[in-house]
């Protein structure tokens, strides 16, 4: 069976060009970049090139890029550095719809005595900006806001927000893991001090990411014990990963336009066709500005895990905001924060497209989804009641 992969916010296919770029570093060029001999030490040139490729994609300078193991480590490193460098400040700010990498981290700081503001969002997933700005004080060490939400694709106006926060002398971090490679980013034009990214979300390999640290930002390393990365992160460089991430960044830059136009149209086609074909369905955050590749559609009165497993029978790979898929019993905290009712939150499916998604694939999904939903609704004790109630 063919695989129709529309789960690109979970991870992406590694681009063939990226694999090709990485291969020599697993075979003949396996040296340690810290070595004195040129067999290993020569690799600093390759690392430098990759660092420049990463920096170029987001408007940064190469020396502002720190390689990490991925988005989660970048987030933890950024917040750790900010709090260590500002030991007197005890207030930190984030939003209610963050990825667990930030959410859990902030909850832990809260347990350890920090005052945490979780800024709410509106029904479309848009940040309550007034609440954010009103929460800030001299005691605020850092504001961390995701650039775009992984479940709904809703975009925060990070350029404006970061300037506002920075003007108050407060550090600004953004988790841009879902954003890099999907929309243009230029940190030279905004107030972002720290930015997290992860290669596997844009056709790079897993296990490699980066943290952008604006020049002049105070920094304290989290991982110590080596001079690598200018002493900011100890540990032998993941040379194949770094080279792969560099190549993926260059490719992502080339494909930004395709994602912004062709992929966006495919997403719109998919969304509109599904909303039209399936009664009682809606797009979560559909009225907000969103990433061009993401749509989260709520199918009322059915449960997400069951939908995904029936989609799986047709080779369609997606994700759900349902509780049952995660093992927790609460549906997605993102959808709940938006006030999406339980009837819809449990049955929300996220389709996330990529540069590799084709029109044929979208048509195939549009063909297969309505009978799947109908089949589950015919089993649901609520469906008949709901439709009868609607008719009266």
């Amino acid at each position, binding site marked *: 069976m063919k695989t129709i992969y529309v789960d690109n916010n979970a991870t992406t296919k590694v681009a063939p060009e990226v694999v090709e770029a990485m291969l020599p570093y697993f075979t003949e060029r396996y040296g340690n970049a810290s070595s004195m001999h040129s067999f290993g030490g020569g690799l600093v040139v390759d690392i430098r090139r990759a660092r420049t490729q990463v920096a170029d994609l987001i408007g940064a300078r190469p020396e502002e890029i720190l390689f990490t193991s991925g988005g989660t480590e970048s987030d933890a490193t950024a917040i750790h550095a900010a709090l260590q460098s500002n030991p007197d400040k005890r207030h930190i700010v984030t939003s209610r719809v963050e990825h667990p990498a930030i959410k859990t981290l902030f909850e832990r700081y809260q347990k350890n005595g920090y005052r945490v503001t979780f800024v709410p969002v509106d029904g479309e997933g848009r940040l309550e900006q007034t609440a954010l700005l009103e929460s800030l004080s001299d005691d605020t060490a850092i504001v961390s806001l995701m650039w775009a939400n992984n479940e709904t694709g809703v975009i925060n106006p990070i350029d404006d927000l970061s300037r506002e926060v920075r003007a108050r002398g407060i550090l600004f971090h953004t988790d841009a893991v879902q954003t890099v490679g999907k929309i243009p980013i230029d940190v030279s034009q905004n107030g972002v001090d720290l930015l997290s990214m992860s290669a596997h979300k844009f056709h790079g390999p897993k296990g490699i990411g980066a943290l952008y640290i604006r020049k002049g930002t105070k920094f304290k390393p989290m991982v110590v014990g080596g001079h690598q990365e200018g002493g900011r992160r100890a540990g032998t460089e993941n040379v194949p990963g770094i080279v792969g991430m560099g190549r993926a960044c260059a490719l992502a830059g080339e494909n930004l336009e395709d994602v912004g136009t062709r992929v966006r149209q495919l997403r719109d086609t998919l969304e509109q066709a599904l909303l039209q074909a399936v009664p009682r369905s809606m797009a979560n955050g559909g009225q907000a500005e969103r990433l061009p590749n993401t749509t989260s559609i709520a199918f009322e009165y059915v449960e997400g895990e069951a939908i995904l497993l029936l989609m799986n*029978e047709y080779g369609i790979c997606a994700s759900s905001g349902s509780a*049952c898929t995660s093992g927790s*019993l609460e549906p997605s905290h993102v959808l709940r924060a938006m006030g999406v009712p339980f009837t819809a939150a449990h049955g929300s499916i996220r389709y996330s497209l990529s540069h590799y998604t084709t029109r044929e694939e979208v048509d195939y999904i549009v063909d297969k989804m309505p009978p799947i939903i109908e089949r589950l609704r015919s*089993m649901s*004790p609520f469906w008949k009641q709901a439709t009868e109630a609607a008719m009266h």
Partner: protein
Amino acid sequence: MWEYTDKVKEHFLNPRNVGVIEDADGVGEVGSLSCGDALTLYFKLDADGRITDAKFQTFGCASAIASSSALTEMMIGKTLEEAEKITNDDIASFLGELPKEKMHCSVMGQEALEKAIACYRGETVPKPEGNIICECFGITDRQIEATVRDHHLVTIDDVTGHLKAGGGCGKCHEDIQAIIDQVQGKPMPIRSEAAPLTNLQKIRLIEETLEREIKPALHQDGGGIELVDVDGNRVMVKLRGTCAGCKASQVTLKKTVEAKLRELVSKDLVVEEVRS
């Protein structure tokens, strides 16, 4: 991704007995939309009180649908008395196995069956006793205590898997842990020999001792024990699982079971094994 057995997948993809029985003899509804799963179960009886038909409607995940489907297959052909003995563990074993996070799906089946039978008999299923511990899912301390004991649960995740309790906001985790600790570790009070036990007290105490002190220990080795009868000071038990047929079982019986019962119930007790 969950590791569902082939049988779970098969019952999810081809569920048996989906639908409604308009003139059902018994109907049981459990769960809600906010909980994430719900089941309505219908059955029809023949003149001899045997279940001739059962149907279900389920809102929920794959294992909820498969558990409902399995339950209807298990019910059909049974008398109500036979059907009411079906437990959530029976549903899970019928399907091979359920991931522990999904045990609550089989519990939902058992509850719907209880409700449907009570509906037929014109009874109402009594509200669970005790104080609500998990506010998200409305689960009481008594329910948690009984489940921890019956299924030998040791972690909060186990409890959440069976009852959903603790699976929401997580505020009740400390309370759940306290109940687990209490059930697992609470030493039995040593009884003074001064007041003789009535027969009923003796049997209850024997049962309690088996549940709290002996079953968990045997369970760790994959075994089990069941009280068959008490006649005077003779305690008749059946060994289960790996204990049954184990060469050391007679030693276990005397050294562990009898010794414990003599210590905590009455020094005159003699334990005998009943073989079926």
